[in-house]
């Protein structure tokens, strides 16, 4: 074996050395390929493992934590919710439609593999500036790809977030999350147990697509990346719909011992992981694998990332029945081997053994690195924000309209109206509110779900930014009436071999961990995506937080829009002079600087307790958390849903007016409350030590806002709504 062979596959010289030590000989070409994909960052987490161990992962409700295809949380009544988020960034940068579509397909398979019926999809998307033609092309393609896959397979896409920033110009982020529902006694795991049990491959034929996809995902993007287009797979949502129904039928009837999908690193990953988890070995015959074309080599079959394939281990007496069920669903299934007890993954083709490796060494024995880390130099510059040099508001109306039409704040209707968010008729809070809410048929319960991350905050302070991502996700759930259950995260960063990037990573994980501990929302799974760089430039560190919350009574759900004229508007939380990292600074003053707003976890927790209590007592008409654009933008957003405007009176108490109107201080929520319930609410707030004050009243057709008695905003609702609603569509014309 020549050094250039393993280097070309992304293995380091010392990693090759380690392989020869493990197996006591030089690997052949097939074996080398298998190690190279399994030991890639994407599959082995070799750079991140040590840090990820610091996440809190346990909790009373946790039935399955990290390490399986997806995490599972108990929600009572014999039911559990299974969810996970995963990235498909690099494929989407090269081939946006298929890259995004197969990202959706992959995360859906992770969920039904666990025995759960997928009930909802969410996504977190980030693109370059809409002024750039290629960024627009990628944006368009990614949205169509998500729509194409999710709509066809019939799982509603109910929520998500979309951000635009030049740091994502060459390296967009496409993070897809899937939520599934299952009975607690039907959980399945990816284990190949039971010596002699047959191993069945089902679904699409194996082709030459997606070779070395995981290796491609574990390196930086450059001009040469376009040549890696063959590393992007092509999705077939119809095939996946059939697979989903057939697999769930088999799991429901207890016909399955272990099951795993074929995603990154294809057959190599599924066989070695399933055997490794069960402490067994597998023997497979590649001649039996149905291929798309003749003459595929063992190397190609073992590394292919063709989509819509599953590997299943069943009892010998169930083998015939299992094939029969697949046949009824029009699927091709083949027994390709069986479970052994020697711990070896043995691969045969044409009567010869073409690979023979300890399964565990592929799945578990990749070297673990502790990359060096150092505080990034840029932080010294960004931290220097002199507010005194920034002129305070001159025309608040103009700024509000500019912010409402800024792509990061503007309505994302252009995006979500391309998604079927209603199929399965359980979506009871549609896209556009703080979190999506789904009812659970046959129960009174509901699930609230959201994905969140303000990556500008994380860039300016990774630790605080990580904390805020969790807090905001939890706040979104709570505003909808859901009690936060657990977290799945998608950690998108640059090249971890660069010390400054790895510092960002460590700090963000620290912040996320601390917040998750405080809210008792353990991390039950997720995904790390490194090497998000183009020509050496890293994206903002973007640890996307996906969170699911439980509503014991879905009828109590709460949404953000004002409901009636004459209700009182209450602001919860305290506003400080905090403009660092704000959308206002970036959009109006072109500055990404300062420290993100402070976050006190105790105050945030008190806020959550108050909100859940108030929603439970039917005290609230609406609730909306304050995020990008601050109070003024949140107010405007509350008026859009039912076309009910408001009149609000604020007092500056020495604060700059831009801080007051557009600052992004944390732990704040805007409520509307019927006049006869406001006393009770304020008393409850006092009891929980949450600052609360009545700032105005709903009604009319204009948003009026006075500051120390002077009216600084008086805008017709339709004018604001038009600016907010049409912005994205206009940018694409």
């Amino acid at each position: 074996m020549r050094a250039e062979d393993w280097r070309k596959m992304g293995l380091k010289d010392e990693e090759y050395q380690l392989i020869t030590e493990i197996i006591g000989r030089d690997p052949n070409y097939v074996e080398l390929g298998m190690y190279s994909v399994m030991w890639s960052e994407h599959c082995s987490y070799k750079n991140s493992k040590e840090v990820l161990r610091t996440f809190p992962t346990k909790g009373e409700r946790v039935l399955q934590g990290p390490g399986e295809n997806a995490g599972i949380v108990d929600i009572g009544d014999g039911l559990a919710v299974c969810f996970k988020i995963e990235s498909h960034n690099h494929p989407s940068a090269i081939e946006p439609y298929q890259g995004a579509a197969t990202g959706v397909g992959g995360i859906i398979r992770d969920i039904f593999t666990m025995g759960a019926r997928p009930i909802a999809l969410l996504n977190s998307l980030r693109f370059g500036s809409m002024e750039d033609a290629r960024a627009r092309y990628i944006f368009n393609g990614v949205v169509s790809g998500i729509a194409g896959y999710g709509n066809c397979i019939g799982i509603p896409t109910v929520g998500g977030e979309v951000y635009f920033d030049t740091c994502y110009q060459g390296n967009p982020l496409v993070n897809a999350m899937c939520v599934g529902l299952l009975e607690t006694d039907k959980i399945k795991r990816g284990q190949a147990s039971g010596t002699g049990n047959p191993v069945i491959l089902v679904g699409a034929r194996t082709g030459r697509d997606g070779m070395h996809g995981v290796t491609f995902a574990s390196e930086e993007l450059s001009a040469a990346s376009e040549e890696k287009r063959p590393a992007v797979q092509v999705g077939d949502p119809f095939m996946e719909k059939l697979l989903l129904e057939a697999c769930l039928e088999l799991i429901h009837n207890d016909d399955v011992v272990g099951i795993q999908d074929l995603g990154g690193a294809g057959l190599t990953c599924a066989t070695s992981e399933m055997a490794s988890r069960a402490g067994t070995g597998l023997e497979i015959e590649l001649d039996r694998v149905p291929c798309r074309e003749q003459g595929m080599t063992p190397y190609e079959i073992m590394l292919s990332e063709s989509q819509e394939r599953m590997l299943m281990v069943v009892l010998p007496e169930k083998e015939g029945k299992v094939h029969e069920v697949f046949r009824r669903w029009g699927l091709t299934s083949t027994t390709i081997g069986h479970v052994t007890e020697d711990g070896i993954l043995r691969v045969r083709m044409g009567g010869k053994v073409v690979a023979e490796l300890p399964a565990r060494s592929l799945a578990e024995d990749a070297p673990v690195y502790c990359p060096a880390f150092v505080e990034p130099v840029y932080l010294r510059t960004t931290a220097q924000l002199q507010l005194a040099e920034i002129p305070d508001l001159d025309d608040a109306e103009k700024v509000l309209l500019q912010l409402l039409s800024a792509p990061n704040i503007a309505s994302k209707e252009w995006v979500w109206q391309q998604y079927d968010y209603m199929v399965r008729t359980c979506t009871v809070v549609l896209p556009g509110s703080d979190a999506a809410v789904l009812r659970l048929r046959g129960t009174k319960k509901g699930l609230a779900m959201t994905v969140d991350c303000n990556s500008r905050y994380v860039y300016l302070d990774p630790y605080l930014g990580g904390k805020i991502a969790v807090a905001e996700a939890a706040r979104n759930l709570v505003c909808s009436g859901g009690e936060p259950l657990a977290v799945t995260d998608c950690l998108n960063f640059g090249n971890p071999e660069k010390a400054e990037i790895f510092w960002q990573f460590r700090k963000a994980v620290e912040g996320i961990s601390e917040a998750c501990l405080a809210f008792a929302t353990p991390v039950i799974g997720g995904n790390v995506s490194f090497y998000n760089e183009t020509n050496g430039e890293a994206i903002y560190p973007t640890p996307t937080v996906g969170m699911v919350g439980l509503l014991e009574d879905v009828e109590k759900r709460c949404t953000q829009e004002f409901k009636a004229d004459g209700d009182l508007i209450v602001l919860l939380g305290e506003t400080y002079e905090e403009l660092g990292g704000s959308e206002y600074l970036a959009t109006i003053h072109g500055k990404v600087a300062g420290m993100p707003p402070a976050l006190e976890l105790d105050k945030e927790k008190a806020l959550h307790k108050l909100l859940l209590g108030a929603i439970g007592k039917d005290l609230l008409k609406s609730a909306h958390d304050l995020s990008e654009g601050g109070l003024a933008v949140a107010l405007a957003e509350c008026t859009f849903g039912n076309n009910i405007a408001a009149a609000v009176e604020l007092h500056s108490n020495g604060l700059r007016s831009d801080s007051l109107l557009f600052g992004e201080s944390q732990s704040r929520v805007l409520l509307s409350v019927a006049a006869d319930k406001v006393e009770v609410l304020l008393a409850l707030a006092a009891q929980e030590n949450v600052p609360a004050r009545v700032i105005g009243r709903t009604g009319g057709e204009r948003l009026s806002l006075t500051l120390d008695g002077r009216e600084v905003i008086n805008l017709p609702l339709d004018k604001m709504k038009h600016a907010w609603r049409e912005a994205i569509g206009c940018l694409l014309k």
Partner: protein
Amino acid sequence: MKFGVVVFPGSNCDLDAYHLVKDVLGEQADYIWHQEESVSGFDCLILPGGFSYGDYLRCGAIARFSPVMKSVVAFARSGGLVIGICNGFQVLLEAGLLPGALYRNLCLQFRCIFTHLKVENRQTPFTLGIETGRLLRIPIAHGEGNYYADADTLRRMEANGQIVFRYATADGEITDAANPNGSLYNIAGVCNEAKNVLGMMPHPERAGEAALGSEDGRLIFQSILKSWEGSR
């Protein structure tokens, strides 16, 4: 009354239609797998939405060759009530049970939004219970719902009262702005000459409960019940 919900590989609104007739309206319902050859015992057939066979070819073009379709056609020809929703509408067109065709949406994108429907003919089994002047608020979710028929066919359909629903504004005006997909004359739903087969792009099964934002879709199923009771 017993509803049969036909399930093709790739159907995905079968559950929703079943749920509405069974759990919400309390009628009998059963799924009919596409390989079944008989539809006997059912009073009304629902061809649900979805992406039958992935719709990789023209929508519905493969589903219409499913074994069950022979008996669906026979059932329709003998006067049985058939309603095709979204992909089901596309299948009915392909099967020749309804006139016209559906192109890709004019905007070339999938659209999932609430629409308002004006009821143009209340003399069908699917609309006879809907009071005059009542608009229906029902969502659409499709990429190919742009209805087309040639001028002669359209004239005949108009004369014969086969245009059942049109997209309208919230005030009941038929305007271009209210047209979500470019359909000729804002057509959202049509029936056959005999009025026992209805095809519509909007999803009444998604508008059957207050929790989903509208209950107007129930009016269509309640009309079906009423007409079935009247015919017994």
